[in-house]
């Protein structure tokens, strides 16, 4: 196994109520690269991402971050894992009782023990970078879906993670609002963030991914550079899936 990869997933199994979702999945993500997971709904993309930050406990196999932090070890402090791994969900999950700014500073202040003013300055800087600084004092119910999702991205970034996981973050959005969220991901990728992203946006995957992984039946069925996987898929199942989503 190559040790220069930032994230290593090795032989991970996971089932829910006797229904297997991951069946010995392997994945290697090099630092500063973008890996895009594609596949039908239920193919295990979301479950895989949740196993990476310890939201789901695996049944078998291992997840290792930066070659040292065993997420799947029972003795690992999962809060320490989550400080280094950012995740953004399909349904945003902003805290509705807090203003945008407070949503963002909660983690840095309570977990990283930053002082409030410093955390606010940093949050405002991030909001500005994503064109959201005018929304800082609004409650989440005043935001459009696209804005809410970008705030969720900023909230995760405020923890200064080393890797970002995106779990179908545009699936709940109006088609008109997808672009602004994808632009934010593109910007992050260009800044060198390590990214693992589950998505149904094939054009976006082709454009930003260093590696595309097609998940089928709970394993990585086929993977490769985007031009390779989209242009010349080797497996019949991959061709079949791609022909249906196009």
């Amino acid at each position, binding site marked *: 196994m190559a040790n220069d990869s930032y994230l290593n997933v090795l032989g991970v199994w996971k089932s829910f109520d006797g229904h297997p979702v991951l069946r010995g999945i392997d994945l290697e993500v090099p630092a500063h690269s973008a890996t895009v997971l594609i596949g039908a709904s239920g193919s295990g993309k979301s479950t895989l991402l949740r196993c990476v930050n310890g939201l789901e406990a695996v049944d078998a196999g291992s997840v290792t971050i930066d070659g040292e932090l065993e997420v799947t070890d029972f003795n690992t402090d999962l809060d320490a894992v989550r400080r280094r791994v950012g995740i953004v969900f399909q349904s945003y*999950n902003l*805290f509705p009782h807090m203003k945008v700014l407070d949503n963002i500073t909660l983690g840095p202040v309570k977990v990283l023990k930053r002082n409030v003013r410093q955390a606010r300055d940093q949050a405002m800087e991030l909001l500005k970078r994503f064109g959201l600084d005018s929304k800082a004092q609004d409650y989440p119910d005043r935001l459009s879906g696209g804005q809410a999702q970008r705030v969720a991205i900023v909230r995760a970034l405020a923890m200064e993670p080393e890797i970002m996981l995106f779990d179908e973050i545009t699936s709940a959005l109006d088609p008109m609002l997808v672009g602004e969220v994808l632009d934010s991901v593109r910007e992050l990728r260009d800044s060198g963030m390590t990214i693992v992203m589950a998505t149904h946006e094939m054009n976006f995957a082709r454009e930003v991914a260093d590696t595309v992984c097609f998940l089928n039946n709970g394993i990585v069925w086929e993977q490769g550079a985007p031009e390779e996987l989209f242009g010349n898929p080797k497996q019949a199942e991959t061709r079949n899936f791609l022909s249906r989503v196009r």
Partner: protein
Amino acid sequence: MVFKDPMRQEQSRKKARRDALIGMASLITFVIVCVVLVTNSSGWSTFQETFFNGDQFVESFPTLLQAFWLNVRIFLIAEPIILILGLLVALARTLRAPVFLPLRMIATLYVDVFRGVPTILVIFLLGFGMPALQLQGVPSDAIFWGTAALVLSYGAYVAEVFRAGIGSVHPSQTMAARSLGLSSFQTNRYVVLPQAIRNVMPPLLNDFISLQKDTALVAVLGPIEVLRRAQIDTSSNFNYTPYVGAALIFIALTIPMTRFADWVQRRTAKKRRAGGVA
């Protein structure tokens, strides 16, 4: 731009005026008929004499008000303790770590017992039972034990209200908080509880109203609160007007509280609709 047909507006104004007039006329007729029927019935003068005696009312009302101050004090002391107790018990029941097993069991047992026993029974049990022990350092004051009984009984109800509120916060909120590295305690403190408490404000206010009335139960132990006072006044004059006076005092306090609870309920519902996407 907004456009409204002036003809239609005029018509709908006319209809509203007519509806209001009909409603008023109907109400006035109804009240007159009721008053005439009641006051002309054969037993009316005795009834009025027994329940709505003006002299009795004027005589007893100041003493009733004075006695009611005790109810208010019981309420003001019991309510904050109930809130804290209820919240702690609800939180204890959500603890999942194995070390907290005894705490979780005690909390569950407490709720099961005190939700199942009539409040007045708890009041008898503590109010008469504890002083009978004659233990050193254990107070024998009826007001103390009456209030304690109310706290124990209502604490169980309020704990269940809080627990329902915690359950009403979507698990994705906890997931998002834990993903930011917040501990289980921090997640409860900053994310789950603030939303849970907002969601249960209407049922909590309902329990407050109920508690205001149940302060009268302490009367069975002997302290002269408003109900006991009314009972004494009633039996010394064989006239029931003091009871009506006591009832009016309770109503004067609970009606504003009820309207406030309704208002909070409407506001919470509106906020929830608006916050649906978040």
